[in-house]
């Protein structure tokens, strides 16, 4: 009993490589990036190019949302606060400081910083509570901001704000926005990936699984959650400002739009909440579909009804998202294949797995499935 087989058994589930080895994975990423870079050169049709920019905006927003909500498990339905604040910051600054033309892009970092600064008091209030209460508080704070946009004098009230005019031809307009959005999206995705594999990300995911247990193991939960919330707000505000420049106008209910919150949440859920690639996938699938419908059907209500239906289907059929579900399928398939390959020959070949080791002990008490 006391003699334990040192490293006797191979791991039951080796790490899954969805895209093969690291070299193949790198090649795949390079191809995707090249395709993204070539997109506006191939599709010069203005409607399609515009969908490309919108998609990148939502890729960024969803990845930013996932850095907080996906990794920590705290579902925020108030991220439009940061999106709108970014847009309004850029709008107010451009108006009051008389900024015109391409110089407006210098305001993007300012918009991001303002959104991040708003996230500090917002987080300190909302992050005291968990789960459903947290969701409700984020919605409440969202409506406070929307009301402020309607009623404060410097926001332009119901008329909203106009972005500085850009003297770009329609084709270059979309192309330039596409590349700016692409840079921001790639930076956000890279940071999201770095965070996920870092100690910071591990602490966030530990908080998602059991916050009290995590703090009992030395995780400073409040600090970690707040940091993720602020980082998430930073990129949401940044992309909010870019969206404002692209659209050319912000209104209280377009900047602070409850549909925005539902959309980013749905995109993340569809792709795989808490994964690095999931939110990108979700946004790339849903945003073009939604834009296409809006352009073709000329009826925004229909696309909203469809959005709601997709949300229901995802929650019912794919609660863990495409990336996670696919990963589980592949793991199962690999395990089956390994078992079949090992076959009866492996029976006697595992001296470390005698009946006394804990690998076998308690096997009868294995929890019976169940959804977490």
């Amino acid at each position, binding site marked *: *009993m*006391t003699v*334990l087989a*040192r*490293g*006797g*058994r*191979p*791991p*039951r*589930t*080796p*790490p899954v490589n969805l895209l093969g080895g690291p070299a193949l994975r790198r090649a795949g990423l390079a191809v995707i990036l090249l395709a993204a870079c070539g997109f506006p050169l191939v599709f010069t049709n203005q409607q399609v190019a515009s969908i490309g920019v919108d998609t990148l905006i939502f890729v960024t927003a969803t990845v930013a949302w996932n850095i907080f909500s996906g990794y920590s498990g705290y579902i925020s339905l108030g991220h439009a606060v940061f999106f709108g604040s970014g847009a309004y910051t850029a709008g107010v600054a451009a108006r009051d400081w008389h900024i015109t033309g391409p110089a407006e892009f210098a305001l993007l970092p300012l918009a991001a910083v303002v959104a991040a600064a708003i996230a500090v008091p917002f987080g300190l209030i909302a992050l005291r509570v968990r789960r459903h209460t947290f969701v409700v508080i984020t919605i409440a704070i969202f409506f406070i901001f929307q009301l402020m946009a309607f009623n404060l004098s410097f926001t332009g009230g119901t008329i909203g704000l106009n972005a500085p005019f850009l003297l770009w031809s329609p084709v270059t307009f979309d192309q330039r926005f596409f590349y700016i959005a692409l840079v921001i999206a790639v930076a956000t995705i890279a940071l999201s990936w*770095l*965070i996920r*594999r*870092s*100690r*910071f*990300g*591990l*602490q966030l*995911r*530990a908080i*998602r*699984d*059991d916050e*009290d*247990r*995590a*703090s*009992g*193991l*030395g*995780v*400073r*939960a409040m600090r970690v959650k707040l*940091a993720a919330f602020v980082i998430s707000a930073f990129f949401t505000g940044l992309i909010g400002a870019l969206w404002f420049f692209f659209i050319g106008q912000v209104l209280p209910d377009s900047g602070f739009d409850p549909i925005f919150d539902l959309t980013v949440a749905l995109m993340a859920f569809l792709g795989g909440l808490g994964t690095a690639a999931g939110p990108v996938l979700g946004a790339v699938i849903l945003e073009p579909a939604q834009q296409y419908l809006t352009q073709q059907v000329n009826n925004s209500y229909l696309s909203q009804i469809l959005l709601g239906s997709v949300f229901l289907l995802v929650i019912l059929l794919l609660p863990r998202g495409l990336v996670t579900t696919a990963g589980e399928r592949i793991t199962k398939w690999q395990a089956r294949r390994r078992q079949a390959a090992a076959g009866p020959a492996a029976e006697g070949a595992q001296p*470390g797995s005698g009946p*006394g*080791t*804990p*690998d076998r*002990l*308690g*096997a*009868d*008490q*294995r*929890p019976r499935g169940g959804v*977490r």
Partner: protein
Amino acid sequence: MTASPGDLGDRLPGSVLLRAEGIAKAFGGVQALGGCTVDVTRGSITGLIGPNGSGKTTLFNVITGYERLDAGDVYLDGRKITNARPQRVFAHGIGRTFQLTRIFARLTVMENMLVAAQHTGLRVRNPLARAGGAADRRRAMELLEFTGIAGHAGALAETLSYGQRKLLELAYVLVADPAIVLLDEPAGGVNPSLIQHIAARIRELNAAGKTFLIVEHNMDFVMDLCGHIAVLDYGTVVATGPPEIIREDPRVLDAYLGTAEDDDDAAQR
């Protein structure tokens, strides 16, 4: 009760590592703990027993910062840590497990181990550095091998059996090398051979100098393992002493009268 850490150091014998002094805690009208004092000697395995509802887990929660106490003080190594938050208590050197095992279900077993390895004290580390450096991973792997679940390091923790979860909890508490480990029912709901395995691991750690405070309903386990036992009943300590004395103490027998319910309770888990 107002003693500063300095003068308590003089009052306490140097051998006391953890002292919970005059702890009181009420939930609404229910007095869970009514001024109980428990000492844990450095290098000992101390048992904490008592019928259900006697306040054992509440005492654990108060010591580790999960509940705020109404009165009393907690000292670790002569240092007052009363009402410190859980992450501070852990940083001070108290690790604990829970009665119902609490693991990070959607992290791998190795990642579970690395959560506890994140504790850095005052050292500033790059937060974006990859989780778990080589040294952390090596130490985590050693502990997984020690508890006997190293073969599952890459598996998601939710795939572990109940007994393996108990072992994982024991392993990740040890990662940060706490001065004292509080175990809440380490033998609860696991099969007899695994109980033997867990007891052997605890004994081995204790021989290497680790101090334990253990809440447990399994009397054979406690009497066999612990050098010193405190008995709680209705939130106060009714008896303390070595197992052979406790076994014969009439107050203990009295407190445990009708202990058939305990067995039912254990079976439910």
